[in-house]
């Protein structure tokens, strides 16, 4: 049997030149593929949506809301670009996969061909006379090896010795360092109780604290002490905190126009521009409206004239500037929806108090002067701190919930309104939450009700002692509690709503829960009590009503075409619902159903809850503070 190809194959196997060419071509191809892959890798976009044009178009889409034609055109551009970007992204990824296999194949061919060249080029060694310098090479190598090993061992020994000698003790070396680890809790100067224990204040921050201390000392003078705090009855006549002084979101005696229109300014007494953003709600004391705003770079507390809307004063609040051990500033990140000024301010009628995402509380006099400032470190909170302050008697309550379920770092703190000193503080075994505490009176005792995951916990307002707790809420808790007739109503999207009777002690989960409902509960807005109903407004726009006594199935559900961050507010006989887009509805809610009385549009995004005082409603939009009223 003849094998005609064998000679050709054999000649190829001996053809060094052919193999060399194959090796060179395969090698060049490998280099080319690697180059293209590297270019593709470094030019890639890890996230198609980060493309500059795409981001610009999305921003333009926001800016052109209201201009239907232009808006539609931009939406179409986004869709086309989205397809292009995704196609490019996945094509690149597919190319990288194919290129990887091509590279593997070409490298294999290059190496195999090179090996063939080497094999063909192999020559038998020519044995010549061994040249010796006289020494035994084996003995030389032996000595060198022993020297190398010995040298290495000596090096390890010396290095270990240095490590032992130079190791510092983790304990403080002197009494001053030891004292620095345990700052006085009553200290007026800034302190950090958050996770950033490594934070140190810069000189600038220290200067601010010195100023604050001077202000406090001034405030402690007998003349200042002469200022009596308004009574609770007086406070109840004002809107002193988030959802009103009693936290119910009810402006019962209000008489407001049933119709208003921002565009024609009908029913709008005034509107004032807001310089800095903030999702905190307005508070009102007599003829003053207070708000705060902040960005990563600047923070202010503002006071507006409630009659005219004029800005009376705007006080800049210094930014804390903690640094890491290496001197780098600590970066502050918050969720865009939360922002840097989410907590609503509070007032005791003498001073206003504000808290920012940075974890500091500032007291400002009604004249706009900073009285004191306390820092608690950047909160360890995934979305940013949002729980609002509550003025109670002569203290300011701070629900500083932070950390995780496994490592909670939460506490409830009562600060003296006059000085900022800690009156009491209580550790809480709950993770970060965004709910605002509620103060209720039960059998002559003031109780602070707090909501978090999973515990609703009540504390004695005078000393922070825990009174009772109830396992009722899960996951991220945002809604704040409300109360009426000795019952506290709490809710969260998971697991729903619950009514807890006051009067218990210890764990009341099995003994004092009147009812539980699991449908329609919100994740952000707080519930509202209307007559014998509880209304819950879900973020996606469904208003659900339950009988306050029996609960059970919803009485009714009504959908509103908007997202909601602002809590429902009762104004006289009506309920005001304000959507995120600025659309608002004035409705009447009875057990029979929900009827819309009036619809309006603020023309800008609204995420803060309204404040109601007298015959006026104050609404904070993204860009303006609106005052609605009949006269």
């Amino acid at each position: 049997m003849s094998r005609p190809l064998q000679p050709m194959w054999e000649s190829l196997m001996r053809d060094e030149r052919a193999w060399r060419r194959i090796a060179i071509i395969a090698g060049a191809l490998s280099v080319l593929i690697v180059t293209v892959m590297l270019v593709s890798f470094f030019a890639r976009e890890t996230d198609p949506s980060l493309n500059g044009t795409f981001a610009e178009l999305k921003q333009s889409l926001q800016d052109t809301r209201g201009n239907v034609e232009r808006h539609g055109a931009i939406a179409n551009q986004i869709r086309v670009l989205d397809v292009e970007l995704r196609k490019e992204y996945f094509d690149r990824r597919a190319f990288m996969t194919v290129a990887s296999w091509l590279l593997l194949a070409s490298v294999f061919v290059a190496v195999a061909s090179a090996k063939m060249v080497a094999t063909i080029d192999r020559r038998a060694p020519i044995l010549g006379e061994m040249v010796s310098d006289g020494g035994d090479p084996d003995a030389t190598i032996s000595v060198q090896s022993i020297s190398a090993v010995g040298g290495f061992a000596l090096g390890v020994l010396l290095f270990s010795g240095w490590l032992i000698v130079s190791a510092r003790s983790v304990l403080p070396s002197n009494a001053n360092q030891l004292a620095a680890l345990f700052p006085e809790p009553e200290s007026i100067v800034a302190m950090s109780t958050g996770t950033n224990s490594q934070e140190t204040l810069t000189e600038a921050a220290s200067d601010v604290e010195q100023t604050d201390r001077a202000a406090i000392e001034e405030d402690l003078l007998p003349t200042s002490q002469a200022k009596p705090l308004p009574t609770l009855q007086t406070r109840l006549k004002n809107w002193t905190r988030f959802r009103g002084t009693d936290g119910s979101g009810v402006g019962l005696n209000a008489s407001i126009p049933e119709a208003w229109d921002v565009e024609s300014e009908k029913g709008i007494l005034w509107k004032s521009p807001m310089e800095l953003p903030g999702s905190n709600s307005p508070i009102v004391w007599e003829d003053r409206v207070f708000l705060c705003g902040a960005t990563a770079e600047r923070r202010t507390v503002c006071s507006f004239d409630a009659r005219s809307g004029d800005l009376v004063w705007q006080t800049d609040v210094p930014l804390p500037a903690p640094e890491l051990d290496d001197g780098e500033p600590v970066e502050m990140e918050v969720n865009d929806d939360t922002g840097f000024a989410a907590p609503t301010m509070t007032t005791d009628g003498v001073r206003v108090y504000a808290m920012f995402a940075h974890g500091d509380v500032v007291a400002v006099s009604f004249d706009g002067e900073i009285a004191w400032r306390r820092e608690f470190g950047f909160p360890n909170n995934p979305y940013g701190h949002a729980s609002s302050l509550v003025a109670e008697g002569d203290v300011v309550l701070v629900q500083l919930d932070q950390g995780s379920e496994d490592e909670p770092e939460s506490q409830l703190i009562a600060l003296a309104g006059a000085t900022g000193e800690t009156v009491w503080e209580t550790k809480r075994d709950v993770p970060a939450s965004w709910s605002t505490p509620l103060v209720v009176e039960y059998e002559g005792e003031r109780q602070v009700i707090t909501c978090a995951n999973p515990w609703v916990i009540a504390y004695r307002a005078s000393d922070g002692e825990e009174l009772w707790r109830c396992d009722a809420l899960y996951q991220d808790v945002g809604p704040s509690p409300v109360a009426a007739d000795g019952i506290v109503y709490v809710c969260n999207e998971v697991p729903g709503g619950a009514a807890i009777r006051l009067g218990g002690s210890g764990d009341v989960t099995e003994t004092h829960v009147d009812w539980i409902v699991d449908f329609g509960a919100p994740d952000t807005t707080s519930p509202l009590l209307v007559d014998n109903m509880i209304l819950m407004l879900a973020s996606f726009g469904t208003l659900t009503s339950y009988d306050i006594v029996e609960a059970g199935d919803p009485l009714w559900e009504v959908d509103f075409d908007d997202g909601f961050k602002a809590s429902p507010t009762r104004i006289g006989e009506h309920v005001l619902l304000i959507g995120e887009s600025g659309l608002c509805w004035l409705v009447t809610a009875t057990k029979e159903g929900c009827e819309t009385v009036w619809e309006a549009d603020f023309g800008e995004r609204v995420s803060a809850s309204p404040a109601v005082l007298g015959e006026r409603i104050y609404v904070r939009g993204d860009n303006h503070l609106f005052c609605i009223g009949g006269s």
Partner: protein
Amino acid sequence: MRGTRVAGAIALGTLGGLLAGSHGDAEETRWQIDPDKCIGCSHCSTYCVLDESAVKCVQCFDMCGYCDICTGYLDTNYDDVNTAAENQLCPTAAVVREFVEDKAGQRFYQYTIDEDACIGCGKCVKGCALMNGSLYLQVMHDRCVNCNECAIEKACPTQAYTRVPAEKPYLVKAQAQSLYESKLADEALAQDDPVAKLMRMVTMR
């Protein structure tokens, strides 16, 4: 005789090695993300040594609210509630929205993850955390090369990366865990492999 001694020594050594190995063998582990610590920072999509990250989003259906306005699906500044590109949060349209039912005036939708399209950026995870938190990230072990030193673990801002036993390489959220444990206690379910069952229920994979 000499051959017998050598064979005996080899046999003894092998036996000793096997015995020592069976007692001293370290547990084989895999990298995984603790979903209760993850904040969806997007480092998973950029720091993985693989071109296509081994980290993907999974959906825990028992935690999902089947919301019409899903914050894990819709961009924060969405224009309308539909599947148009300008309204979607996911940069690669990997979250698939399907209508389920209309109940009590509300429309409910199911959201599933197209794993091939998912780049593990965590945007949906961050969005969903505003609601039920049913979307979360996991390291997929059919893709992960199990580096000794995981590049994402080094970059993770919340130290959510952890080593888990290789035979149970996926994690569920603490809240879902207790729910599933009670479900798995069911006799009918207990006949199946609990870990496989758990992951199927959580991710529908």
